[in-house]
């Protein structure tokens, strides 16, 4: 009956294949209005005046709000620098300036366009290079006075600065027989969850707002909306419908506060769903990065030193940027025993859309640079690229940068798994069809699961079934099912006797969010602890009834407590729960409250400044090999087949783990080869699926082998840790290393479009 380790079907699969799953756009409330947004046409401008008279008079329009109508509470996960609507000035093209609620969506959109806003244009900064110039205009005049959650240095357009240093990098270069240096550039990537962002807010007679939204955390929605609208949290209840993917786009605020403001103003429910174009233009994207990396090694392949500096484009508002930048720096050493490391980063405000959380959280960008350098070193010393990685591999008992403990030998196992499955050692026998070049490419990464806090409550109903309340939002990755599996096996009950409640700030314990690959690991741990408390209480009841000691009792499969060694002396959960409800003690509940508490930085080992996460998480590892093929005529690259090994501790639901690995791979394939948000001046040039392309069935590799490595994480639930992000982190360098193997050209810029590959192959520089 055990379900942990089984690929049981998703609990929500049936409703999704029947078309009955309700996402935010599928919710309707009586008397509901529709919201629309008027965005700024300018990248940087002062707002001089608003004239909403014509808009207000359009039949069907109920509310029109400008920045001047709202309290202007400042929010932001690291820097409190953002308001719901622009106040006083606009900082990027598309920034929401006014909002409208009307009887239907067409009317609301038409009315929004009728609002006249007068602007005084200001010079804009569109790149970090422009932003860091002496005389650059300031995106945020009050930058230095903003509240920041952690200490850092800032000023002008510098929003945050972080550095890590351990060992002695400056001296270490002289120990190296070989040093490689390079500059790398990665592009802005759009999440393109198939569901655009949206929210529905309703205010009740007592003035309390209920808000549903496409989200990755009902608690972040609550905190953000309350900060933004200056509301007490008691005034806002946040709930979640089914969510159509997030990948980081829905972790922090999008339209929730705007929707709530319209509901409060109009007194009626308001639904606001973004168009795909708006989703591209006003929410967030993956940060573009410029990375300078330097790595040094000895002739025998021992890695000695690594130095990385990154310049990160923040966009107009901080959002998760400090976290992303800091995390990249923490990951910049890679899964290797490099004793001398220095990683520094500077984050600059620009007059573009905010950049924020996106699967990988800065790791895909920095791994692009560092994993290419590992291959460069291997090539220069004539060592096999896999053997070089294995030689330097982080092992169980090692420390991460900063001193955090590594509990797993999973990295070596991942390398071994891909080596065998992809027949790495026979790669020179690969045959390229006429007109193509072909090679295997390898890259690796680490990642974390953890961060911040969570809780779980398990309640036993009268009939012995169990309700599991957590704040974990299932955004499609399958957490509802996995958490139910953990709960079921922790209590030894069939999974159909576990009900997982939908996250609701009124009734779920806090969970920071579905992010940082943390739900299985953090919420799973809380569930295991809460289940132990339930078990203890049930045993106390049974001990009373049997007149024995709780130590004589054991949990039996099927929801029973019995006396050890006496098979027919047992009581069902129902028996015990009925007693609790009606006779003795009160309803049986177990709860747990948990903070990830392993410190990221040991100050005796590492000098760190501007660290945005004092306690980060447990480490996971991955290795990816791609069979890369290049069309010689055009430079177009395809990945015929891929092998992706991930160290997951324990696969609670192997099918779901495979799905994450395969999905992450294809999203990484897009990052590597064809996806790029492009600006024409200050405006996004391709804010539509016509012009921003993600891989289709015919572009994705037909064979993506997900190789699960299970080296139990000591305190993970059943040994499990996370999988959400690591599958994307090493994809781009694996492909680009494959391109180098196939045609001898080492690209240092993403995406590796046919254009970039062809010009590299021809040895010609070109404009783009």
């Amino acid at each position: 009956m055990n379900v942990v380790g089984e690929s049981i079907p998703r609990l929500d699969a049936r409703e999704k294949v029947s078309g009955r799953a309700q996402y935010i756009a599928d919710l309707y409330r009586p008397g509901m209005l529709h919201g629309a947004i008027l965005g700024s046409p300018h990248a940087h401008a002062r707002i001089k005046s608003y004239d909403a008279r014509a808009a207000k008079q359009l039949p069907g329009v109920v509310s029109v709000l400008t920045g001047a109508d709202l309290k202007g509470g400042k929010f932001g996960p690291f820097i409190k620098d953002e308001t719901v609507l622009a106040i006083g000035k606009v900082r990027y093209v598309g920034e929401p300036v006014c909002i409208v609620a009307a009887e239907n969506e067409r009317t609301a959109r038409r009315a929004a366009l009728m609002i006249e806003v007068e602007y005084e244009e200001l010079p804009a900064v569109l790149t970090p290079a422009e932003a860091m110039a002496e005389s650059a205009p300031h995106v945020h005049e009050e930058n230095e006075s903003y509240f920041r959650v952690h200490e850092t240095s800032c000023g002008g357009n510098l929003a945050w600065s972080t550095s890590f240093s351990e060992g002695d990098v400056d001296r270490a270069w002289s120990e190296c027989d070989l040093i490689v240096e390079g500059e790398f550039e990665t592009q802005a990537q759009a999440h393109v969850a198939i569901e655009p962002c949206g929210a529905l807010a309703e205010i009740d007679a007592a003035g309390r707002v209920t808000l549903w939204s496409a989200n990755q955390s009902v608690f972040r929605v609550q905190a953000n909306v309350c900060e933004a609208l200056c509301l007490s949290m008691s005034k806002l209840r946040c709930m979640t419908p089914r969510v159509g993917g997030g990948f980081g786009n829905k972790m922090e605020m999008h339209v929730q506060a705007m929707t709530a403001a319209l509901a409060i103003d109009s007194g009626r429910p308001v639904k606001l769903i973004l168009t795909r174009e708006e989703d591209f233009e006003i929410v967030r994207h993956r940060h573009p990065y410029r990375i300078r990396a330097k790595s040094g090694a000895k002739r025998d392949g021992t890695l000695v030193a690594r130095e990385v500096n990154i310049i990160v484009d923040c966009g107009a508002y901080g959002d998760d940027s400090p976290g992303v930048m800091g995390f990249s720096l923490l990951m910049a050493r890679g899964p290797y025993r490099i004793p001398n490391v220095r990683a520094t980063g500077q984050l600059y405000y620009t007059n573009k859309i905010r950049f924020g959380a996106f699967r990988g959280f800065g790791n895909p960008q920095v791994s692009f640079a560092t994993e290419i350098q590992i291959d460069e070193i291997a090539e220069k010393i004539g060592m096999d690229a896999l053997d070089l990685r294995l030689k330097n591999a982080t092992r169980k008992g090692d420390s991460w940068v900063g001193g955090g403990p590594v509990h797993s030998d999973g990295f070596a196992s991942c390398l071994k798994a891909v080596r065998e499955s992809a027949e790495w050692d026979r790669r020179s026998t690969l045959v390229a069809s006429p007109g193509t070049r072909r090679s295997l490419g390898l890259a690796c990464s680490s990642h974390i699961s953890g961060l911040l806090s969570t809780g779980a409550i398990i309640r036993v109903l009268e009939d012995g079934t169990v309700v599991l309340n957590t704040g974990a939002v299932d955004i499609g990755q399958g957490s509802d099912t996995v958490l139910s599996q953990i709960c079921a096996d922790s209590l030894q009950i069939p999974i159909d006797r576990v009900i997982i409640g939908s996250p609701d700030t009124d009734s779920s314990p806090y969970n920071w969010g579905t992010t940082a690959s943390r739900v299985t690991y953090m919420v799973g741990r809380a569930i295991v602890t809460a289940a132990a408390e339930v078990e203890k209480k049930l045993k106390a009841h049974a001990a009373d009834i049997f007149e024995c000691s709780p130590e004589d009792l054991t949990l039996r499969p099927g929801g029973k407590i019995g006396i050890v060694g006496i098979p027919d002396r047992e009581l069902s959960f129902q028996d015990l729960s009925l007693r609790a409800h009606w006779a003795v003690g009160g309803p049986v509940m177990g709860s747990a409250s948990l903070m990830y508490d392993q410190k990221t930085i040991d100050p005796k080992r590492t000098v760190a400044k501007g660290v945005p996460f004092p306690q980060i998480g447990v480490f996971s590892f991955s290795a990816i090999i791609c069979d890369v093929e290049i069309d010689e005529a055009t430079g177009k690259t395809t990945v015929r087949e891929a092998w992706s090994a991930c160290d997951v501790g324990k696969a609670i639901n192997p099918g779901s783990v495979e799905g994450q690995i395969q999905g992450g791979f294809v999203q990484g394939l897009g990052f590597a080869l064809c996806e790029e948000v492009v600006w024409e001046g200050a405006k996004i040039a391709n804010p539509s699926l016509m012009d921003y392309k993600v891989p289709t069935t015919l572009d994705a590799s037909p064979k993506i082998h997900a190789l699960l490595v299970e080296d139990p994480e000591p305190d993970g639930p059943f040994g499990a840790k996370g999988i959400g992000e690591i599958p994307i982190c090493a994809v781009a360098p694996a492909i680009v290393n494959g391109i180098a193997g196939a045609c001898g050209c080492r690209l240092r810029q993403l995406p590796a479009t046919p254009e970039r590959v062809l010009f590299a192959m021809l040895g010609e520089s070109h404009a783009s």
Partner: protein
Amino acid sequence: MSRPRLVELCVNGTQRAVRASSEQTLLEVLRDELHLTGPKRGCNQGVCGACTVLIDDQPVRSCLSLAVLTENRPITTVEGLARGKSLTALQQSIIDCGAVQCGFCTGGLLMVAHALLADNPHPTSDEVRAALSGNLCRCSGYVKIVEAVCRANEGSLP
């Protein structure tokens, strides 16, 4: 928006009279008037495929179809695939193969796969990929979806 008129739509085997104006797409009318929210608005440009329905048993984009021009032509949405409580073999295969993650693309791709299997009950994986190239999925990487469609009719004779 121009004045709506009464339009006779034949949806999932039932004749329904709805009010629609000439600009409204079938997607809007199915969702907002008939409360069939299975077809989704993912892009409104015909690219993502989440809005796909069958008209005359052929997959089309409901976001690119004007409702008034679909009058009296048999329309099937994902809600109309299953017969009462029993899912089709395809729907069951999608569940069993772990091919649903967030589910937002699922309805649209089921319509295309359903039409494919009606013509070709035992397709090769290449045939499935070609048929589904107009349905974007951002979660799954497509591998399990293709497997599920290939295996849908495994239990029945070729």
